[in-house]
């Protein structure tokens, strides 16, 4: 009983959720917008936020990088965006998908939805791995190719990902704006209904499956995933300390096996593998060796003495 209690305490996700909540509140703190049904129009909107965060959210203080990317490449005078691509490269090179785990408001919403107790949670299913590649298709087709080539008479492309798919815009932008604004309510049509259906489906799915949007749809996650293995902030496994117990792979909700691929494109740096590791073999690279030892207090956890082999398993 005590052992289970200690394990739960060790795997407590609320410190990370507190950071997520704080960041979400900080970047969506234009509260007057929610009261008036209008959006922030100040200078901060020149800057992109690291996570996916609709700029039509009444509280948003910054721009959504996915929306900004489509806006620039879909404009008549620019067909490539140094500004947004550079921003994504900068953030990705610093921390990779740490953004998904800590700095994305929609990631937080999905994390909280997954906490709702239901009789059965789905960890993985047949075709899961293949479906993970879908986010790269969304990135290529809806964020890059369609805004670039499906243009109007002036040469301007629409933000097709935002328009047809993005449930973040529906939740953060359209729902509050339509609720607060009479003229918006009069303008809703089939597209609004379609996007709400998608949002509701995603919310239901998020209760039984961990972060379905991040796993299968998010184009921003697809971009940052390319930087996971080269980012300045990344994880490492000490092979001398690793006992191959498999605890890290078992605890990972993104179905990463840290022992095999510690900086997998799917890793969102939630840190659960670091916490569960009984020998402190997993560390983040920003830690100095001495800090790493201090960070992994494994005195309460049972320490497997030998690597797992068929012999000592039986």
């Amino acid at each position: 009983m005590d052992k289970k209690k200690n394990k739960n305490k060790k795997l407590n996700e609320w410190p990370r959720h507190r950071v997520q909540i704080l960041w979400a509140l900080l970047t969506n703190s234009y509260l007057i917008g929610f009261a008036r049904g209008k959006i922030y129009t100040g200078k901060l909107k020149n800057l992109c936020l690291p996570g996916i965060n609709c700029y039509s959210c009444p509280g948003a203080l910054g721009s959504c990088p996915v929306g900004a990317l489509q806006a620039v490449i879909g404009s008549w005078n620019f067909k490539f965006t140094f500004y947004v691509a550079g921003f994504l490269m900068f953030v990705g090179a610093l921390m990779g998908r740490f953004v998904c785990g800590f700095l994305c408001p929609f990631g937080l919403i999905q994390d909280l939805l997954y906490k709702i107790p239901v009789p059965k949670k789905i960890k993985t299913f047949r075709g899961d791995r293949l479906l993970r590649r879908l986010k790269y298709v969304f990135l290529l087709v809806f964020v890059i190719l369609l805004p670039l080539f499906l243009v109007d008479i002036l040469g301007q492309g629409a933000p097709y990902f935002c328009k047809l798919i993005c449930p973040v815009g529906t939740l953060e932008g359209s729902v509050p704006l339509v609720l607060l604004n009479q003229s918006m309510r009069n303008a809703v049509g089939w597209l609004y209904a379609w996007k709400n259906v998608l949002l509701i489906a995603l919310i239901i799915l998020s209760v039984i499956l961990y972060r379905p949007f991040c796993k299968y749809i998010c184009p921003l996650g697809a971009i940052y995933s390319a930087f996971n293995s080269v980012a300045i902030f990344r994880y490492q496994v000490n092979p001398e300390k690793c006992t191959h117990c498999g605890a890290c792979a078992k605890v990972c909700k993104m179905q990463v096996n840290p022992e095999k691929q510690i900086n997998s494109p799917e890793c969102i740096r939630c840190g659960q593998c670091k916490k569960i590791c009984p020998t402190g073999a997993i560390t983040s690279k920003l830690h100095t060796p001495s800090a790493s030892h201090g960070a992994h207090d494994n005195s309460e956890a049972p320490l497997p003495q030998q690597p797992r082999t068929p012999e000592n398993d039986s």
Partner: protein
Amino acid sequence: MKQFLRSRAAGISLAALGLLMMGIGIFRGEMTVVFTKAINICLECIGIG
């Protein structure tokens, strides 16, 4: 190449390149496009337009 990608220098180089690209983008006036889009309610983004 693989050695370089594993080193922290890869991350630092990419971050520096990212900053340089942002500078080029600002110089080209891309920030204005982002700003103009972001301060107007994006009807397409919210499923109305």
